[in-house]
Every structure is written in C-alpha cells, then in structure tokens.
C-alpha cells in the first residue's frame, strides 16, 4: 500500500537517467545469490529488473541476528548510505512498521504490504542509478542490514507464529504470494514455533504430537472427501460451457435454477421420507382405473394415491401392537412446518449474505457509479469461447461509444412541458399495466368459480369434465406468458432514461401480475373451494395446483420453442435485421419464481409436488440449455448480475415465501379440514392436532418441558411482545450504527481527497526545489557532495511537525476548505528561502508526514 505514493514524489527526471550501471550491478548480484529457489523471484521478476534481492536476506543474515526488534529506525539516519533524500522516501514505512509490529493482523490486512517491497524496490533502484558507482557498491552491501523487506518478513513470520493453526492458514491464504514463497514463509513460521515451544518445555510434546497427527489425518480425510464430492458435482461442465459462451449473466440464471432444483430435491426427500413412506405401510388399495389423461389433470386415478392430502390416514401407524407408533397427523404438520422454517432461514441468510456483499457501498456511492470506472473490472474471465470473446469485445466497443455520447449529451434538460408529458406517459403505462393485471385477475376468478360449478355437477370422472378442468390452468399460463410481452412493449413506449429503470419497472409489473393471479387463486381456494360441499376440498386444491404446475411447465417448454427457436428461424431467414434472439434473463427467472411459489403453496395439499417440480426443473434445465446454445446470442447490455441475483432472491423471499406462509397459516389455523379424508379429518382445524398432542403430553412427567415451552413460549402473547420489542430495539441500534459509519466514511473520503491535494501541492513544491537546486549545483560545481551529507538529519524535522494528522482532520471538517494548509506554513517559515537544503528537508519532512497520514486515512477509508 505504500509504493504508489513513491511514484508521486518521484521526480520524473529520474526516469530519464537510467544508465547501464544498474544492469551490471543487478546481474552481478544475481549471480552472487543465484542458488535460491526459483519461485521466490516471481514477484520481483514481474515487477522489475531487480530480482533476487529480497529473497537473499534470510541467507545473508541469520534470522536471530536481526531480531524483530532491532533498533532499525534509529540507526537509519546515520548508517544509511543513501545520501540522496529520495532514498528516504522509499523507506517511509519504517516508523510505521516499528509501531505496529505487534499488531498481528496489520500486515495481513493489507495483502499488498508484502508485495510492495518489490514495487518500492523497483523505484528505489531507479533512483539509485543517479549515484556514482562506488557509492552504489557500498549501498548494495549495506542494504543487507537495513532493508525493510527483511524486517517485514521477520514481522510477518513472528505474527504468524503467534496465531493459532487455523488463523495462520487463513492468513496465509490471504497473502498474494506465490506458492514457493508461501512455503518458505510457512517453514520459517514452523521453525519459529518449534523454537518457541522448546523454550516452554516439551513435556506435552507426545500428547500434542498425537493430537496433531490426528488433526492432520483428519484434514487429509476431509480433503479427500471434498475432492470426491468435487468430482460428483453435477453439471459442472454444462455450467462451464454456458459461462464460456454467454458470460456470467446468463450463467446466473442456470445457477439459480440449479439452486431451486436443490431446494426441491431437499423438500421432496423430507416429504417422501417422513410422510409418504409411513403412509405406504398403512396403504389402502386403490380401486380407480388409470386412463392416461390423469397425467395432465392429476385427477381420477391419482385421487387415491399418496400424491394428495386426501389419501393420507389419520391413524397412528404401528407395526406391532405395543411397539412404537407413528402419529400421522403430527408427522404431517411438523414436516411441513419444519420444512418452511428451514426454507425461510436459508433464504433469509443467503439474502443477508448477498446484501452485505453487494450493497455495502452502493448507497453511498450511487451517485458516482458510472460506466467508465466499471471498465476496470468489466472483463468476464469466464468467457473462453473465441467467438464469444469477439462478440463481447464488439459489444463493449459499442457500449463504450454509447456511454461516451451519453456523457456528452447528458446535460440537456427537459422543459416543464416535456416533463409533464413524460410523467403522463409513465402514469398511463402504469394504469394500463395495473388495469391489465386487474382484468386478468377478474377473469381468472370468474373462470375458476365457473370451473368449480362444472366440476361439482359432473362429479363422475368422465373425460369431458376432466378436460374442462384444464381450461383454467391453460388460461392462467397464457396470461402469464402473453401479458409480459405487453409490458415490455409498454416499456419501450415509455422511453426510460436508463436501461436499469426499464428493467426494474418491467420486473415490478410482471411481479405484480403474477402475484396477483396467484393471490386471487389462493382466495378462491381458501374461501370458495374450502367452504364448498365437496367431499375433500384439500385434494381439489392439490389437483388444481398440480395442473397449474404442469401446464406452466409445458408453457415453459413451448416458450423455448416459439420464443427462441421460431424467433431464430424468423430472425435469420425472413427478417434479417431482427437477428438472433437474446436470452431474456429477467422473465425466465420470474417464471421460475412463479412456479416455485406454486410448489410451496401446494406442499400442504399435495406433499409430493416438490418431486414433480424437481423433474420439471430438471427437464427445463436441459431444454433451456440446448435452446440457449442453439438459438440465442449473449445479452448485449451489461447485466448487473450480482445485484439482480440479490433482488431475485429477495423476491423469492418477500412476496413469494411470505405470501405462501400466510396462506399456509390461514389453512392450518383457520380453515376446517374435510370431514371424510386426510390426516386431520374430524378436527376443528389442522392445528388442533398439536393442541391435542400437548394435552396428551401433560399426563407424562418426562415430557413436562415440552408442555412448559408450549404454554410459556409458543402460545404466550407476552413472550412474543417482549421478543419483538427486543428485536426492534436491536434493529434500531444497528440502524444508528450504520448511520454513524456512513458519516465516518464520508469524512474519511473527504480526508483522502484533501491528502491527495496536499500531496500534489508538495510534489509541485519539491519539483520546483529540485529544479532550482540543479541549476544552482550546476553553477556551484561540487555542491552535490555536500548536499548529500546534509540531508541526513532530514528525518528529524519530520517528527517535529506537530500534530499533523489532527490538523488535517480539523481542516477537513471545514467544508469550505480551499487553501492548502501547508502552503502557509512552508512559506512563512523563515529559513525556507535563504538556504535550499533546510527548506528542502522541511518539505520532505512534511511530505513524509503527509504521506503517512494519507496512508492511515487510506486504510481506514477503504476498509470501513
């Protein structure tokens, strides 16, 4: 973190003064120490011509001779051979090093610190070129004792050795070093540790060795296991190919799909294991005939299978008369309940993780996030396909051009009339989209009521009424597929200022549409089907959801066919200017969220629905993959993948899962289960099963604690009141902390800015000084020798400048800060103008302090 600042101070003249001397010197030194391992030199090799300097120190000096606490900073001014003051600059980090030697994490927090030495060495060497040859020789021998890199490594080893094994491994992993270098450091650390433990005595060694051996073998076992699982990873290759051709953004859709698939596999396994398998033991024979259409409608034969709620028994299942028994009611309610709790927690934690990762800075800096600086990290290294690379480059090219013209034309502002017009258009579009959604909901509602009547009339399983039940899901899916096109057309009409707005508004409208349709369906199920005169309303609802899921799946496949395959045919043959279709990530993800919502609602009514959804997702994965690779081209616009993923997970949690939870809650607590079917037959509500169970438990003394928890925590309002108050308080405190941090960050940012200004000013001053000095030394002939010696005490004033950071801080508080704080000081100091040398020394001292302060601020500013 230091060496960038070196560059700022460096006089540009030095660059032109490169001579061959350095090469000679460098090569001779390399020969001298060429027995080192080849890995060490990588950093130096890549950062400059000066190889093998740092790595030699451990050889040249025995480690013990230069203990970490060598009074290195003290002897520097006197023994330092670098008469030229620029050399001091490259060593500016020494005082800091000495101060922070004992804070173990200091070096590790800044992964560059270790690598820095090579950078600073590089500039350092360039400066040294100016020295006469004999001085260089002296320097190369004496640097061996005073080089900061060496003591830095000592520090590093020392701090690593004092950590626990786990911490040390983590810290080592964080270091940006080559493997060989890391190994060397590790060996040193181990040596250090053994040295220390020998001091402490070796009584425990046998036991500890045993433990260590066990730990090592355990770790090996873990590694082998993870290796094995690594090979088991499904679709690794598929995902890689997709990433190679289409980039991270499209890849994120497939990762999301895979994630949902895992979710469903998990839920299927749970349901199957805890609900279905016990049911098999108590299975009744199924006397309905199988016709084939049932696969689509889910009715008929399936009515009396484990697929639906109605088939499950309410009995306690036990193999032997007095053996342990299995209460189906409790199993049903607890399995579903625990599954939802797990889902909720997983979603919550993954969302929190994404949030903390992706939205840390965006709020504060949202104003100045622009395309230009994004270019620094825009390249997608996943893309390895040659054609894709070309395409990506082309897209970036047009994007950059667009961005540039945008910046140029951004200033044009709209007149009042235009603004009103825009607002009116937006308003109209919103009214249109909301109206469509409402119309769709009404249509679905009346259709479903109609459907129910039809179903109740023709109760027998004749073919016609069964086909009629398919009308509702087909209509719903049609609405879900077609209306988004209307919305995106509306979005094009509206002419949003930024593409981001366009995407977000379209997504918001789609979400409103989908969720209101699901909402109206839920209303229909809970309020109309549940109170109807049907035999088993839960099974009816389950069938409805089954059909919806299935038809949605079919529409998804059809969508790939028509939306992508036919679109490609049209785009490449009929209408050439249309080109290849782009993969619409947003809409595809929303479809996934929609079907996952349906599955969640359906779990209670049809416990095996996750299994069906699992198969559907599996097929969708492959169909989408093939369709994508055959038909689509990578998206042209930059898609802010990480933030979009976060918002998708948020959508999955917030309207989707929370809505489902409320539906399930109403079903479990409020609705009366059917009288003649299902595990809860005869109860006033599903939850009554739990109440009854608690009543039974009360008679056993062994399970008193369950009863106590139930009465005092779960059914106790006071407890929840206290809990929520507590949570609110904690939230409020955190909120305040965040606000404080934000102000702090702003302040620090301002400080960095000011430090930068200081630096610039000082650099200009220095350059002027040097120019003046050079001209004077040219006049004075042999002035150089004298000046080099008189720079030695230059560090002294550095300590004398009082309270610099404090001062800088004060001035930063003042927002109308314009004038440079040091200019006054420097100019007013009386000895500045008369003698060149003291003035320069003072300037350097100031520069040093400024830089240290800047460093301190800098580290604080970037890791708030």
């Amino acid at each position, binding site marked *: *973190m230091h060496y*960038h*600042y070196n*560059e700022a101070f460096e006089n540009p003249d030095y660059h032109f003064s490169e001579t061959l001397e350095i090469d000679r010197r460098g090569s001779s030194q390399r020969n001298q120490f060429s027995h080192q391992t*080849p*890995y060490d*030199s*990588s950093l130096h*090799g890549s*950062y*400059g011509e000066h190889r093998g300097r740092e790595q030699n120190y451990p050889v040249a000096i025995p480690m013990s001779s230069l203990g970490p606490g060598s009074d290195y900073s003290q002897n520097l001014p006197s023994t330092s051979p670098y008469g030229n003051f620029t050399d001091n600059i490259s060593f500016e980090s020494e005082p800091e090093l000495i101060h922070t030697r004992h804070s173990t994490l200091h070096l590790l927090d800044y*992964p*560059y610190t270790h*690598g820095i030495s090579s950078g600073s060495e590089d500039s350092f060497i360039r400066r040294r070129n100016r020295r006469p040859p004999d001085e260089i020789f002296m320097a190369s021998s004496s640097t061996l004792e005073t080089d900061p890199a060496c003591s830095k490594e000592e520090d590093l080893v020392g701090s690593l050795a004092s950590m626990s094994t786990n911490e040390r491994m983590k810290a080592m992993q*964080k270091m*940006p070093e*080559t*493997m*060989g270098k890391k190994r060397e450091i590790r060996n040193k650390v181990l040596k250090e540790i053994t040295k220390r433990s020998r001091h402490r005595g070796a009584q425990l060694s046998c036991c500890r060795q045993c433990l260590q051996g066990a730990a090592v073998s355990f770790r090996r076992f873990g590694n082998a296991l993870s*290796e094995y699982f690594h090979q088991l990873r499904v679709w*690794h290759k598929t995902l890689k190919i997709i*990433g190679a051709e289409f*980039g*991270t953004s499209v890849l*994120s859709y497939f990762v999301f799909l895979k994630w949902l698939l895992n979710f469903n596999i998990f839920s299927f396994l749970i349901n199957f294991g805890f609900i279905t398998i016990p049911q098999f033991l108590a299975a009744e024979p199924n006397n309905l005939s199988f016709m084939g259409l049932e696969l689509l409608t889910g009715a008929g034969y399936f009515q009396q299978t484990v697929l639906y709620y109605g088939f499950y028994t309410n009995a306690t299942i036990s193999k032997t008369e007095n053996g342990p028994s299995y209460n189906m009611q409790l199993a049903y309610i607890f399995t579903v309940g625990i599954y939802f709790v797990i889902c909720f927690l997983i979603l919550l934690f993954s969302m929190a993780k994404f949030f903390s990762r992706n939205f*840390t*800075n*965006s709020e504060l*800096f949202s104003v*100045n*996030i*622009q395309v*230009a*600086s*994004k*270019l*620094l*990290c*825009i*390249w997608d*290294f*996943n*893309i*390895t*396909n*040659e054609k*894709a*690379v070309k395409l990506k*480059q*082309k897209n*970036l090219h047009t994007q*950059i051009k667009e961005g*540039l013209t945008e*910046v140029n034309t951004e200033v044009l502002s709209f007149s009042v009339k235009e603004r009103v017009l825009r607002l009116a258009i937006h308003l109209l579009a919103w009214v249109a989209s909301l109206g469509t959604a409402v119309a769709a909901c009404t249509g679905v509602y009346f259709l479903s009521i109609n459907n129910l009547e039809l179903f109740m009339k023709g109760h027998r399983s004749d073919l016609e009424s069964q086909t009629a039940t398919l009308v509702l899901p087909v209509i719903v899916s049609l609405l879900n597929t077609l209306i988004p096109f209307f919305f995106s057309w509306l979005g094009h009409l509206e002419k949003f200022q930024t593409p981001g707005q366009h995407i977000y508004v379209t997504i918001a409208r789609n979400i409103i549409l989908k969720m209101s349709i699901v909402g109206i369906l839920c209303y229909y199920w809970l309020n109309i089907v549940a109170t109807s005169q049907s035999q088993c309303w839960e099974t009816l609802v389950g069938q409805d959801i089954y059909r919806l899921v299935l038809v949605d799946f079919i529409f998804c496949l059809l969508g790939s066919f028509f939306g992508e395959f036919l679109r490609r045919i049209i785009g490449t043959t009929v209408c050439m200017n249309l080109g290849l279709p782009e993969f619409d990530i947003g809409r595809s993800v929303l479809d996934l969220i929609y079907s996952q919502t349906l599955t969640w609602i359906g779990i209670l009514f049809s416990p095996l629905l996750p299994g069906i959804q699992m198969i559907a997702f599996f097929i969708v994965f492959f169909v989408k993959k093939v369709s994508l690779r055959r038909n689509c081209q990578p998206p042209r616009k930059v898609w*802010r*993948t990480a*933030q979009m993923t976060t918002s998708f997970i948020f959508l999955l949690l917030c309207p989707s899962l929370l809505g489902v939870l409320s539906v399930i809650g109403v079903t479990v607590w409020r609705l009366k289960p059917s009288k003649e079917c299902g595990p809860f037959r005869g109860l006033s509500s599903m939850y009554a099963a739990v109440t009854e169970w608690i009543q039974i438990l009360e008679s056993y003394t062994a399970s008193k604690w369950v009863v106590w928890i139930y009465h005092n925590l779960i059914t106790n309002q006071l407890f929840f009141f206290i809990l929520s108050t507590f949570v609110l308080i904690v939230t409020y405190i955190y909120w305040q902390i965040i606000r404080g941090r934000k102000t702090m960050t702003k302040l620090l940012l301002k400080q*960095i*800015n000011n430090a930068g200004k200081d630096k610039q000013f000082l650099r200009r001053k220095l350059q002027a000084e040097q120019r003046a000095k050079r001209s004077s030394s040219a006049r004075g002939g042999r002035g150089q020798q004298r000046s080099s010696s008189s720079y030695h005490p230059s560090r002294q004033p550095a300590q004398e400048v009082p309270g610099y950071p404090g001062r800088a801080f004060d001035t930063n508080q003042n927002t109308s800060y314009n004038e440079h704080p040091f200019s006054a000081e420097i100019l007013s100091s009386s000895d500045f103008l008369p003698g060149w040398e003291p003035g320069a020394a003072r300037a350097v001292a100031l520069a040093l302090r400024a830089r240290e302060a*800047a460093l301190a601020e800098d580290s604080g500013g970037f890791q708030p």
Partner: protein
Amino acid sequence: ASQSAYKRFSELLPKEERENACSARVPKSQILTLPELRANPFQHRICHVFSTSETGDDSMSFEDFLDMLSVFSDSATSDIKSHYAFRIFDFDDDGILDRKDLEQLVNCLTGQGEESRLSSAEMEQLIQNILEESDIDKDGTINLSEFQHVVSRSPDFASSFKIVL
C-alpha cells in the same frame, strides 16, 4: 480439484517429460493453447504475472499453474483477486495504472482490430472519465487501493474474475 489440474498440466507437457510434471516448466506458447486462456485478451499478461521463470520467458511450472488456478478459483478472496487483476492490468509492471496502461486495457477490452479500436479523441475522453471517477487522490494514476475501491463497488467482479478448469 488438484488432480484434474495436475492432469491438465501434464497434458501440456511433451510425452517424455510427463513423469516429472511437478518440476518441469511449460513454455508460454504451450500454456496459451489451454482452451481457458486461448481466447482471453489478457492471456499474455496472465502468463507474465503468474510465471516465476528466471529468464523472463513466461514459462510456467506446476506450482505457478496452481497459483493461477487458485487466484481464479471461487475460494480466493476478493482482495486477492483484485490484487492480481491489478497486476494483470498493469501492463508496464510499474505498480500503478497510468494512462498508457488504461489505453492498453481498453484496447484489450474492445479488441485489437482496426475497426474496433476507439479513436484517439474517444480514448482520451474515456480515460479522462475513468480517472475522474476512480483516481481519488488526483495524482493522474490509479494505484492499487484506488483500484480495489472501484472493484469493491462492483459486486460482479468476484464472479467474473474466475476461470474454471
């Protein structure tokens, strides 16, 4: 993962050297035939940054190869990734991104062909924009911490700075 890495690495070696793949060095030309690097516009820089070759021919040993993979893997921290990204983009190896580096970087991003290059005025404007936004201390260059700051604002970086075998 290391097994597959070993396999891939030894495939790059000629037959007679495969026994001692751990100590052999693969020349740069051979490394660049990897499908993961073949089309990458930064392939030369990647080789250069990760190579520990003493002669500067950018050849890679197995350890260098592993280093590269670990930096580009999922488990590398964002700090490490941005550190190496900085070094990859630092074309002249001087520890800062100056205007020349940025120009080369943009050229790599848009492709080297004549028609895909930006005009010098556009380039000037673009670099000016980049510096204005990311050069916090206004010294006309981007240093590592400034670069890491920019990266921290771009959450996609960690997922896009990735190469899987």
